[in-house]
């Protein structure tokens, strides 16, 4: 399979907002992502995983290393890399329909075609009946469904997700995770999913990238070889293929957390 996204020797420092001291966020990160792959990135808080995502999204300029999508160096944000943010990122002044069609609107797609595509994604994420609601009239889960549909509808090459389900309640989160699996099968998108939840990382991804504590390095990459069609929470919790991988990832993450505590 061809390489979709390539990160080489990426190192990043940024000045701390309050002290002004240089923070070493990423250290020599190498990562190659195949087309259609689902990658999760997990690590202790403050490990630089969000910094990585912001660089991939083009929202943060980088100076050391190289990031390419389909062989092209990235400079700034671009529609080929769609982002699903943590929460409250859909525009409150747009209805569900207009939020989802926003990317197409920016691209100048005619209204008739846009409506057609939007309806397709409204259906895919299960928001039928809520098309004309404003975000403040939706539940947290529905807002994130809208956010996912908005990113998908713009048809990006790579979908970057920054802890998108962190703020919804546990029940909804499980449903959204299963839906995301279903959507990834249907759309065959390349997905990079940032999370601090080990369960979520193991459940969703083909490959799980574990970050060390700051400065963020890739500590390990764990393959989770379970076909996506089989990934349903009802089955996974009793499936040793899943539980063994989850425990392995958990162990790797906890090593980082405990090192931090000993210091």
């Amino acid at each position, binding site marked *: 399979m061809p390489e979709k996204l390539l990160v080489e020797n990426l190192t990043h420092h940024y000045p701390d907002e309050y002290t002004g001291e240089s923070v070493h966020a990423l250290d020599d990160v190498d990562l190659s992502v195949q087309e259609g792959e689902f990658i999760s990135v997990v690590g202790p808080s403050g490990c630089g995983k969000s910094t990585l995502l912001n660089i991939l*999204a*083009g*929202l943060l300029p980088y100076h050391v290393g190289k990031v390419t999508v389909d062989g092209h160096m990235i400079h*700034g*944000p*671009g*529609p080929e*890399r*769609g*982002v699903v*943010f*943590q929460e*409250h*990122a*859909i*525009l*409150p*002044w747009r209805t569900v329909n207009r939020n989802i069609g*926003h*990317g197409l609107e*920016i*691209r100048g797609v005619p209204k008739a075609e846009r409506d057609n595509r939007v309806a397709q994604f409204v259906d895919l994420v299960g928001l039928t009946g809520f098309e004309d609601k*404003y*975000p*403040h*009239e939706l539940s947290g889960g529905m807002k994130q469904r809208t956010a996912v549909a*908005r990113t998908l509808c*713009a048809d990006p090459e790579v979908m970057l997700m920054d802890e998108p389900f962190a703020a919804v309640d546990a029940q909804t989160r499980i449903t959204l995770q299963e839906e995301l699996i279903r959507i990834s099968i249907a759309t065959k998108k390349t997905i990079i999913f940032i999370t601090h939840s080990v369960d979520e990382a193991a459940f969703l991804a083909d490959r799980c990238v574990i970050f060390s504590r700051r400065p963020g390095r890739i500590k390990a990459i764990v393959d989770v070889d379970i076909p996506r069609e089989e990934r349903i929470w009802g089955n996974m919790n009793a499936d040793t293929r899943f539980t063994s991988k989850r425990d392995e990832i958990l162990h790797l993450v906890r090593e980082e957390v405990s090192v931090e505590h000993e210091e």
Partner: protein
Amino acid sequence: MSIFNDLSIALQRKIGRQRLRKWILGSIPFIFLIILWEMNSYFVWLEPVYIPTSGSVWEAIFTLQEGCEGVAAAVALDNSCLMTTHIFSSIGRVILAAVVGLPLGIAFGVIAGMNRTLSKFLEPIGIFFNSISGIAWIPLAIVWFGIGWQTTLFIMLNTIFWLLFFNTMLGVRGVAKVFEQSVLTMGGSRWDVITQVYIPGAMPSIITGCRMAMGFGWRALIAAEMIGGDSGLGFMIFTSAAEFKIEEVFLGVIIISIIFMATDRYLLVPMERWTIQRWGLVWKPT
């Protein structure tokens, strides 16, 4: 009693209980004021030289409107139709100042709000000019523009512009970064961010700015017309007072208040309801 009951129920059905309650409660002070006024006419606690009777204020309308024929006369600045002439003169300036001042203030406010360097550049001078209240500019404006419409328009524009500028700037600064980022990552341009994120996101502040601008601007305009104008309701009040036509002064004050209340209620409040309330950006009483 049953007639009153039926009437009350019919009214409540028609306009709604909450609105009826609000309407009744809101009109009590006015009714009280009118009763007090009528009592003064009857008992003459204060001479009509100070407080005219309601009848004479009513008659003042016809005195002022004397010799009024046709639409042209109602607007033209001559000695006919004085009341409508002055009303149109004031309203015309308010509209002109709003049409020019509001977009200008919003535009500069957006630019200053989105650009840190530029806002550092513009903010001190903005505070400097804004510290002088609108009407304090009148003497200077008279020197620059003379007595007339230019002076009154300048005073109102100056008041409107700075209020919109500051409110928009603060509003734009308060818009969550993630909205801008989401539009940029969908391939949006700077212009897309301005029109689709900054302006709607700053709408709560912009609307507050508009309400303040209309309130302060309208007051500044009346003051400017008194001192530096040759027409308008402020001018009318001032000249009438000089001629001891106290009933015309009262009439002028009442007209000003009614126009202002109507603008707020039928223009600015619906605008608020249509935008930020619909978007869930304001706390809404249930």
